[in-house]
């Protein structure tokens, strides 16, 4: 069953109503359960649960400790290109924007990767705008083949592809596929994706399933918080994660919670999420899917990132540049968004250690590729 079909079997209206109006009894039930269903999860998102945030944080901390220990995986994004045919209104890379465009050559990608390797990174996330010609499947394959001998873990966050192309990328050395739905609200989705392939909501929604069938070992999903009601996004994300953990049972699922950041030419959040609600969302997700990874990027401030280390986050980027070529040289090429945590990888490493956690550079192996 596809995720789309699975979604249609869920009593979503009723679950979303719980997320808005749960009673104290429903929240308590969720807090005392070892195995939460979607209604329990929704109750934890409700306004009623806000006063119980500290208890949720304690539960989330305990669950994370048992499952993941005192470790935080570190990774870096490597931007291959800011060329893009899409029209996402929240992104600097969108086609109509008059920005300096650049796609790295394979040698330039390797130069970027070498800088990250020297900083300690062994897990990379390859990111790019969606441009079928400049960032073609064979270009991505060539990048993977170049980097695979040196990097135990290579994830891709690029334009969604077919299962066949994904299988080629897996053989070329990629172990992870990251694709954010951006928003799970079809109307909001149509409002911010004005033209191009990305308008196809269902194609994007079923991308992680295709990736799992092609052999990716890690699946990253996420919603760009700020485009629509966060409780609605959270319920869909949770359902998506649980669906993938059953359907694509061999893959490790992780969830990202990017909050919309200021970016050149881009709209701001119409539905902002407060820090307090954001932290509650992290805790609720951890309680609902104890085995899922939770990823936090440098979109968030140093203060918030340090604060949530014990609460359920399992991996973090550090020292990120979001423009292609940004590690090798300061460039005029436009960034995807503004970074909030400007610390160097070394500073993030020390901050994680200071919190009593082991920052992990390497937790995968080249011998497991393909």
């Amino acid at each position, binding site marked *: 069953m596809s995720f789309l079909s699975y979604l249609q079997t869920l009593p979503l209206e009723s679950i979303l109503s719980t997320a808005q109006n749960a009673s104290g009894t429903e929240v308590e039930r969720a807090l005392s359960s070892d195995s939460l269903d979607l209604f329990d999860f929704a109750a934890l998102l409700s306004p009623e649960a806000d006063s119980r945030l500290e208890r949720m944080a304690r539960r989330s901390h305990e669950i994370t*400790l*048992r*499952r*993941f*220990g*005192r*470790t935080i995986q570190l990774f870096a994004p490597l931007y291959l290109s800011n060329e893009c045919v899409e029209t996402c209104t929240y992104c600097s890379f969108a086609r109509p924007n008059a920005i300096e465009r650049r796609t790295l050559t394979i040698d330039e990608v390797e130069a970027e990767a070498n800088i990250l*390797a*020297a*900083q*300690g990174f*062994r897990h990379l996330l390859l990111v790019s705008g969606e441009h079928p010609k400049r960032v073609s499947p064979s270009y991505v394959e060539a990048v993977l083949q170049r980097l695979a001998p040196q990097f*135990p873990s290579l994830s891709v966050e690029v334009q969604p592809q077919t299962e066949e192309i994904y299988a080629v990328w897996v053989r070329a050395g990629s172990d992870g596929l990251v694709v954010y739905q951006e928003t799970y609200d079809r109307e909001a989705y149509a409002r911010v994706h004005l033209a191009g392939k990305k308008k196809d909501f269902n194609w994007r929604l079923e991308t992680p399933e295709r990736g799992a069938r092609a052999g990716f*070992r890690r699946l990253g999903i996420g919603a760009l918080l700020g485009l629509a009601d966060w409780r609605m996004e959270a319920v869909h994300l949770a359902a998506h994660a649980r669906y993938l*953990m059953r359907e694509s*049972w*061999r*893959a*490790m699922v992780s969830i990202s919670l990017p909050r919309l950041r200021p970016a050149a030419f881009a709209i701001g959040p119409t539905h902002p999420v407060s820090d307090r609600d954001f932290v509650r969302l992290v805790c609720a997700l951890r309680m609902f899917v104890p*085995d899922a990874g939770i990823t936090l990027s440098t979109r968030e401030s140093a203060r918030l990132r340090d604060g949530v280390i014990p609460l359920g986050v399992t991996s973090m980027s550090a020292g990120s540049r979001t423009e292609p070529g940004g590690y090798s040289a300061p460039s005029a090429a436009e960034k995807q968004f503004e970074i909030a945590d400007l610390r160097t990888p070394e500073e993030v490493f020390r901050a994680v*250690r200071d919190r*009593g*956690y*082991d920052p*992990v*550079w*390497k*937790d*995968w*192996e080249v*011998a*497991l590729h393909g």
Partner: protein
Amino acid sequence: MSDNLIIADRTFRSRLFVGTGKFRSPEMMRDAVRESGAEIVTVALRRVDFDPVGPNLLDFLDRGDILLLPNTSGAANAEEAVRLARLARAGGLPHWVKLEVTPEPKWLLPDPVETLRATEILVKEGFVVLPYIGADPILAKRLEEAGAATVMPLGSPIGTSRGLKTRDSLAIIIEQARIPVVVDAGLGAPSHAAEAMELGADAVLVNTAIAVARDPVAMARAFRLGVEAGRTAFLAGTAPPRQESAEASSPLTGFLGKLS
């Protein structure tokens, strides 16, 4: 009287194996490993960087006193496990391998078919193979026949701290085994470790319960003592639990005395 654990051609005094994952720092891991008295210490190959920028995980272990037992965590099938084992040997690690073939990331339960296949391949290549398995007595015998050095059945899934949920099957495995049985995974407290040893296990492996304790070093000591207590009790001959019905009268056979 010496009570040593013998695996393949090596003799160990300690019957506690410890893992090195999930600790808050490599220094804490090192101190806890020392305090545990373990002579066999597992390390995930996926965590080992043979060309690191900073210090390597392995630099924190006293390699003279312990046997470093690389595990194949992350392998989803026999081929991947075999590749990892070969990588370890090529990297100068011992030719001993804790075989973990876990195709799903949630419970990390071992795949019995792939585990048996990988054992057959690795034994032929000269590895000392210690496979992690579900508590399946027939699989344990098949692995023994395939040349495994031990079997390492789980008490409950990795990291769950639920104790010996597979107790009855473990008892059968122990009774049948001609190779050491090491209870692996799910031991959340020293009392669980003691229970496994009382049951007749030859050793136990502990990681999460020590690594995530508030004081990992003290918890390592507690597990050492728990294992020693359980082993001593096993050797001393634990009194069988009292039966429900008293045996003073013989309602079923009493008639025998009244005959003739």
